């Protein structure tokens, strides 16, 4: 009897999951239809619901970015595209849309030398570098017990060492680039950075919707940001969307 109950429970759970997935898929398709006929606000809602009900995917995030951009929410569009870019760094359409939005915003996306790190983020380097590092270490360990100074084993060990060092350097530089690149997007119009983390503090400089900034410090509800021109100011945390690096 217990096993029957367990099977029933599992079946019901599976049905619920399938229903959620189908509902999410349905929202996704309806979002595309709404977007195609110019109902961008409705499209944003449907893509957001697809995101909430199902698991995030590159397609949903990318389409949500398009719908938000068409709906005039440039900052939120950039945030969605950046999330999609994070999962699929090489996708040309995401890059082109981001370039379009950044040109419109008129703010940079960080130093030039960090741009390539978007296409080759640290997670792309991490696994090959780890495999190479561990393999090299194992070979070195084996090599300790061998007197094979000029043999084939030593040659392969050296080659693997060179590859490991290159991968490690790539990982380190990519990590440094990501850490110095903007990690947040300003959302909303009329946002202005202040000199200090209090409401009474005077305005330091305005930030357009979609400006990409780097969060430097968090102090309660306030965050200290650095914009692409190096200006430092304080914003309320709700005025930016942070992109996981």
């Amino acid at each position: 009897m217990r096993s029957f109950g367990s099977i029933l429970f599992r079946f019901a759970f599976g049905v619920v999951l399938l229903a959620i997935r189908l509902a999410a898929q349905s929202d996704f398709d309806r979002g595309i239809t709404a977007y195609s006929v110019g109902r961008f606000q409705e499209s944003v809602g449907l893509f957001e619901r697809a995101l909430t009900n199902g698991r995030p995917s590159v397609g949903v995030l990318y389409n949500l970015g398009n719908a938000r951009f068409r709906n005039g929410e440039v900052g939120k569009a950039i945030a969605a595209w950046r999330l999609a870019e994070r999962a699929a760094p090489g996708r040309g359409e995401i890059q082109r849309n981001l370039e379009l939005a950044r040109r419109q915003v008129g703010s940079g996306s960080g130093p030039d030398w960090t741009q390539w790190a978007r296409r080759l983020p640290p997670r792309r380097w991490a696994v090959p570098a780890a495999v190479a590092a561990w393999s090299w270490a194992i070979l070195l360990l084996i090599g300790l017990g061998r007197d094979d100074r000029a043999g084939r084993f030593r040659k392969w060990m050296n080659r693997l060492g060179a590859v490991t060092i290159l991968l490690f350097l790539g990982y380190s530089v990519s990590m440094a680039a990501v850490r110095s690149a903007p990690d947040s997007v300003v959302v909303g119009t009329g946002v202005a950075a202040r000199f200090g983390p209090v409401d009474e503090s005077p305005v330091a400089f305005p930030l357009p919707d979609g400006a990409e900034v780097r969060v430097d410090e968090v102090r309660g509800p306030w965050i200290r940001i650095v914009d692409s021109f190096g200006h430092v100011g304080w914003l309320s945390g709700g005025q930016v969307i942070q992109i996981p690096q």
Partner: protein
Amino acid sequence: MRRRFPNLAGLRALWSCLLAWGLQAVLAGATARLELDREFMEDGEVIPMRIVVEDAVPSAIPAIPNSQILVFTESLGQEQRQQIANGVSSFQVIIRYRGSLRGTGELRIPSISVPTSAGVLRTEPVIARVFATEPRNEPVTLHLYTARDTCYLGETLAFEIQIQSTLNLREATPHKMSFDGFVVGRTAPWIGSQVIRDGVVVGVSASRQAVTPTKEGDLILGPVSLEAVAEVGRRRARSLIDDFFGGGVELKRFALEAPGRPLKVLPLPTAGRPADFSGAVGSFRIEATVSRTNLNRGDAVTVRFLVQGNGSFDGLPSPKLVKSPGLQSYPGTNIFEPADPLGLTGTKVFEEAVVVDSTEVTSLEFQPFSFFDPQVGRYSTARLKPIPIQVVEPEATGDATAAEADPANPPAPEAVRTPPQGTGGLQPLMSSAGSAISVESDLLDSEYFGLVLLVPFVGLGLFVGVRGLRRRRSRNQAPTRRHLAEMTLRDQQAALRRSAAAGNSKAFFDALSALLRQQVSLNLGLASGASLTAVDVAEPLREQGVSEESIDSLMRLFAAADAARFAPMALPDELATWLEMTEGVVAELQSRTKETP
């Protein structure tokens, strides 16, 4: 050591680089500069000088070198100052000097090295001009100095007027300055200092002004006139109140005039003059930015030109766009932000509104900006890179093509929003959601993943270190009896193999006998195996778990060794068989030995 770790040299170089970088970072905040009170002086003066060191403490007082004009320089000691501005604390050490001027001309004090706690700092070279001594008939005199005797037409340069007084100066009112052939520009505030001339302390008040010649030829800059009031003595006060209000001081009014100085104004050369030269004189850098690059046809954008450098900014013309059909430009504002009180250096920003009325326009191009650089005496041209722009037809609604493709679901008019500007280049939607992804950071995104890369090498290093330590320790230990016995066994086994290979029966059986006794004595924990017989060892070995087969082989080997003492001849094949049997037995006995603690 170097052979085993050849990369140590590289590591040392890396460490040196890191050290140098760190030192550079530390030194980045500390500065040293040499300061003179005035840029224009006279022969025979004893002038004060100072080296100001910020955010570092000098470890020794550097010397200011003498030159043909500057002689008898000496240090007057140092003082420290701490100041807090905007919550940031800064620290200054001022080293004071004085020196005598002998002769006229350009005084050039080279860069001076200042050894400090943060390393050796260097001052920038300082240039001043020393004039011949002018006659002084009054205790208060007025002087006019210029930086150069020649200049170019349209070049802005500075001149200085100085009131020099041995009396206490109360007030000074300069007359309006207007010189024929010159336009007078900005005036810097008065700065007071002191100088010693002929053993008398003279107070100096100096003010600099900018001036631009408007015609060429031999001109006279000046004269300059000024009215000053100075204290000439003290008379006896009539009352305390009279004294309190300054009544006890005798004042005298002086009408001062400094003669003009000749200035040769050269015309701008015609040789090498660019066709587009617009009259800018100075040395400039130009940048251009545009407010947006993605726009609809008919949109207006602001083009901003940033002109930085030094020279004449007052009449500086704006850089210009290349005119093309579909572009209409309207001049806007211009703002000058001087970087010095006279406005000789700074940044001028020109703004221009540009309406783009054609989708054919793909970039904004700029005319070359030519200027005459008086420092080098030739023309230069700055060229700006074109700025690419994207112009599209304004869209009334969203994606009309897609709307046509779905006639069954027409857009609700109230829900349709006008797309934001510049959506023309937006890529189409993805038709498939794709596989699920994680938008949260995980270990692969974390800096801590670097540890995963480093752990194997740390482990390897530890392993090598521990192994080396153990080896060193074992080398340092005295060999035990068991260790010696094992070494003897290895030697005897080697001798057995050699004699078997050589077919030497006598040597083989001698070695066999010694080897068996040595191995068995080791198994049984005996000091020596010289007196052992086969019968003695069988039972104890059996108790140790040695197999019956091996004990049997051992018996046969003992018997063969004993028999060989009387008849040692054997064929090489037989020796090989005995060797094989011996090695099998010894291997099992050795395995039992290792199990014995």
